[in-house]
């Protein structure tokens, strides 16, 4: 059973272990500072006629890549939790339809992977499930089409804007001991500080990350020093600066996957990377190996999401943020 601590945090009673991870990225991600970490690189359209098919292919291939790294068959997987940014989780449902695994579709914007890991922890702690796969994906072109303008339309991006990461990744979580353990999770609240600029998602999400991190620390009576790193999903450079100011987190403890994945000057990505695939790929291929190698022992992974839709933006609704925290220790 998960044991509740404080307001929003649950400590795993039954061990939940991250047994294996995998991520496939696009060429821009490969060219970035973390390029060598990722398992596989494929073009953004991957030879498909539509962006939707391409992203579905990414998530399908990432699933098979992950399964290929394990000694398990798809039949051993009790459930796949997956989500993406495309209308009604198009990529996940198309990409995983032939996987033959029980499926729960999620939408938590860019926080989807942490949402999946929270739910997977509960499912495994319930005693009912033993092997759960958490996945998330995003694709630059499909995200532009869903949220912004057609890919080929010319125009400038403001410095606070972020570049959607093309990546699909997954983590195999199991009750069977081995590898880094998810010791606790904090389910985030929806936090809205009245940001309406959809080109400044870092500012929209930073208060949610701050709220979840501070709640996690107070629920478990910890300070950020307990962790080797507090890793946010995709606040970017702008959002990271804001988070550090409002929480007092130091640069030595806080890292952000969105700020790490691209070289903002050389790759002209402004505030950094974003998207469901950003935190997923960086956690899977950068931080997971660090934990395995013993370079890090305790991390708090906080994936952040901007809960907006094209319609809510057009109707001038403010952009709410959400963040879920997953404590991983080895």
């Amino acid at each position, binding site marked *: 059973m998960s044991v509740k601590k404080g307001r929003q945090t649950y400590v795993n009673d039954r061990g939940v272990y991250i047994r294996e991870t995998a991520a496939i990225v696009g060429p821009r991600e490969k060219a970035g500072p973390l390029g060598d970490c990722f398992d596989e690189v494929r073009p953004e359209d991957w030879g498909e006629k539509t962006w*939707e098919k391409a992203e579905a292919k990414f998530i399908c291939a990432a699933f098979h890549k992950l399964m290929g790294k394990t000694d398990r068959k798809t039949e051993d997987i009790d459930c796949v939790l997956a989500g993406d940014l495309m209308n009604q989780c198009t990529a996940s449902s198309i990409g995983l339809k032939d996987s033959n695994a029980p499926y729960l579709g999620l939408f938590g914007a860019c926080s989807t992977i942490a949402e999946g890991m929270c739910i997977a922890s509960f499912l495994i702690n319930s005693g009912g499930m033993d092997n759960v796969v958490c996945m998330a994906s995003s694709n630059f072109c499909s995200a532009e089409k869903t949220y912004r*303008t057609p890919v080929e*339309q010319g125009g400038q991006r*403001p*410095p606070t804007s972020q570049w959607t990461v093309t990546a699909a990744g997954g983590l195999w979580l199991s009750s069977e001991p081995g590898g880094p353990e998810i010791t606790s999770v904090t389910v985030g609240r929806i936090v*809205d500080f009245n940001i309406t600029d959809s080109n400044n998602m870092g500012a929209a999400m930073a208060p949610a990350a701050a709220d979840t991190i501070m709640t996690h620390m107070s629920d478990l009576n910890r300070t950020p020093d307990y962790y080797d790193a507090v890793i946010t999903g995709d606040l970017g450079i702008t959002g990271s600066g*804001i988070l550090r100011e*409002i929480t007092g987190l130091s640069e030595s403890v806080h890292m952000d996957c969105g700020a790490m994945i691209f070289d903002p000057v050389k790759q002209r990505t402004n505030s950094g990377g974003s998207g469901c695939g950003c935190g997923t790929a960086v956690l899977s291929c950068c931080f997971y190996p660090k934990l395995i190698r013993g370079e890090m022992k305790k991390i708090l992974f906080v994936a952040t999401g901007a809960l907006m839709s094209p319609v809510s933006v057009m109707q001038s609704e403010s952009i709410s943020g959400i963040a879920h925290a997953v404590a991983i220790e080895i």
Partner: protein
Amino acid sequence: MDHDLNGLTKEKYAAVADRHSAGSNVVKNCALAFVSGGLICIIAQLFYDLITCSAASHIFGEIDEESGKTLTVMFMVFLGVLLTALNVYDEIGRVAGAGTIVPITGFANSITSPAMEYKSEGFILGVGSQMFRVAGPVIVYGTAASVTAGFIYYLIR
């Protein structure tokens, strides 16, 4: 709302967010728009001068001023469409900004890019219904504004 981020109010947060959110470099963007927009106009002028000069009349025949202007506009629209189809107009636009949006090449780009994007949804519900999603408002309100202006002109004439 009970989110007590150390007593952070929305007003205080707006100030913090503003401080961290770098603004666009207006001077640089204006300069780039000026140069790139000017370059597009130079290309159009060169084309116009070329097709209307006396040497060209031996090839194309005599082209009067009106026809020359129309042909120039058609050429610039073609150029915008071609560069969009070759996936380069957006790259130029990322640097040039308004310099590539305001001229008629930008108008061509705004129609071609959704047409390309939504081809995957078919020629009727995709290309047909989506290609004016960016240019449509310009056409609607441009027409409405010209009708209004014409009506006012009729009254005060």
